[in-house]
């Protein structure tokens, strides 16, 4: 199997609890792949395994032909995978601008001495970081916000977009979005939909966890469906909508809605 990202038999146990078992699928370059499933199905756990926030207990993650499981999170970001978090994780006391500038870290190199001595090279690098930051803020629709204000003072919807800008600052080839429209109204959801399209047009492949089904059906080229830590279906949105197993996972008997 070839693809930008390839998951091979991924399993993850927390003590006696199996969060993921035998997950295999691949993501083709340029596609938007939706990851859906009921709460507790293991979707966020999958993101955490891909970005190495914790290691898988089985299987491996292959990115661009190389095994990346076992690398540190920052090394994976450097290779070209960025993410956002389900519960927004900005640097609250840092400014809007600084949050994005932090995202440039792995694409820049000034160390302690260059930073303190303010060499010509360092000032040039800082200038480029700022310029790119402003471009990204404009891309995600934050050009109206004051780049010098604290990130925590932004309205909720803007914070989500700022997190996307921070993720894009690392120049990812694969972007993992964990419920980017959670808690947003219809209009805001539309804007994020357009943003996702725009990011894809820049050549970024997207893996999208989302509960908003109308967005998922509209935005995604393919879907992978999780239930109780297993992949229960994979295919184009239209086929998934009519898949009996998927319908049962979402609408099935009450006892199947326990948190797994």
């Amino acid at each position: 199997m070839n693809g930008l990202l390839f998951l091979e038999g991924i399993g993850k146990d927390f003590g006696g609890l199996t969060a993921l078992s035998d997950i295999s699928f691949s993501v083709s370059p340029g596609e938007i792949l939706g990851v859906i499933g009921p709460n507790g199905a293991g979707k966020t756990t999958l993101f955490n395994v891909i970005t190495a926030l914790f290691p898988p207990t089985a299987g491996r993650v292959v990115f661009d032909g190389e095994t990346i499981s076992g690398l540190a999170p920052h090394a994976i970001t450097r290779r070209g995978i960025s993410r956002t978090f389900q519960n927004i994780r900005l640097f609250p006391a840092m400014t809007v601008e600084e949050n994005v500038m932090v995202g440039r870290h792995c694409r820049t190199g000034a160390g302690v001495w260059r930073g303190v001595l303010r060499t010509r090279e360092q000032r040039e690098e800082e200038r480029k970081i700022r310029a790119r930051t402003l471009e990204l803020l404009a891309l995600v629709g934050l050009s109206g916000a004051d780049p010098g204000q604290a990130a925590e003072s932004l309205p909720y919807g803007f914070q989500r977009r700022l997190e996307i800008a921070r993720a894009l600052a690392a120049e990812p080839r694969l972007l993992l979005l964990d419920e980017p429209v959670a808690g947003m109204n219809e209009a805001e959801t539309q804007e994020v939909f357009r943003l996702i399209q725009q990011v894809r047009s820049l050549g970024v492949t997207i893996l999208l966890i989302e509960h908003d089904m109308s967005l998922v059906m509209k935005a995604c080229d393919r879907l992978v469906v999780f239930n109780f830590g297993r992949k229960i279906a994979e295919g184009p949105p239209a086929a998934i909508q009519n898949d009996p197993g998927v319908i049962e996972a979402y609408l099935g008997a009450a006892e199947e809605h326990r948190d797994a």
Partner: protein
Amino acid sequence: MEWVNPYHLQVASFLLINVILGVSIYVTLSTGQLSLGNAGFMCIGAYTTALLATRYGLPIPAGIVLGSLLAGAAGVLVGIPSLRLSGVYLAIATLGFGEVIRAVAINWESLTGGAVGVAAIPQMGRVLLARARDIGFSPGSVGLRPNQFISLSVFLILLVLTALVVAFFLRLARSRVGRAYTAIKLDERAAEAAGIPVTYYKVLAFSQGAMVSGLAGALYAHSTSFVSPSDFTYHRAVEILVFAVFGGSGHLLGPVFGATFLTLVPEALRAISHYRYILYGVLLVLTMIFRPQGVIDPPLLRLFRRARPGAAA
């Protein structure tokens, strides 16, 4: 030149050493790690240069550099296992480290002279005076008595070094590395997901803090010409902590202010300087009630900048 008061200059010199110690705890704290081992690192810096100078006649500047570097290296050694700890556990472990260093200084008598300490360490001002006389300069020619010259030169040397240390870390804070430090302090997991090698920067910050403590220790040794283990007890560690808690740990200028204020106040109130620790306790409690982030915090500094447009560098 009667206004050159050696006593006041000596107080000012200790103040500057305290400012450097305030910087040392801030640097480590700026990545969210609370180290109470800075008295221990200070001890390493002080003893290194004291022993090298008294036994092998090593020049003072070389001793200060070596003392700082050795403390920084010890910082790496302590910093790596400390990665597994955070918050109060890290604080306790580093406090323990400081006490271990002091116990070594007391008990390894053949090296350190034990509880008696190391005496007759070359004092910066005296050495400078001797050198000046060698080249035919007499302090009298600028209207200074020898003891005035000595205190004044110690103060000026410390002033320059303190300014350099503060400028170094102010600039660092406003660079790529400084942003990484703040990101780690605010959310370690988000920082690593954003591409920051968290382990590297935490050890770096820990070791920088240790090195700055070592520098303060080395300067202390060459200012007082005498060090003993009792200079580096946990009282010292707590004193350094109070600089940051009282002054504020959200910005470098917080501990700098804390160190300045808490050195000057007991001096200004000589009559109660015996009750210094009571004052510390009261101040700590009051700070925690009325201003838990410390006196100086970033919003306050922004207020100052707005009040004086153009002051923000």
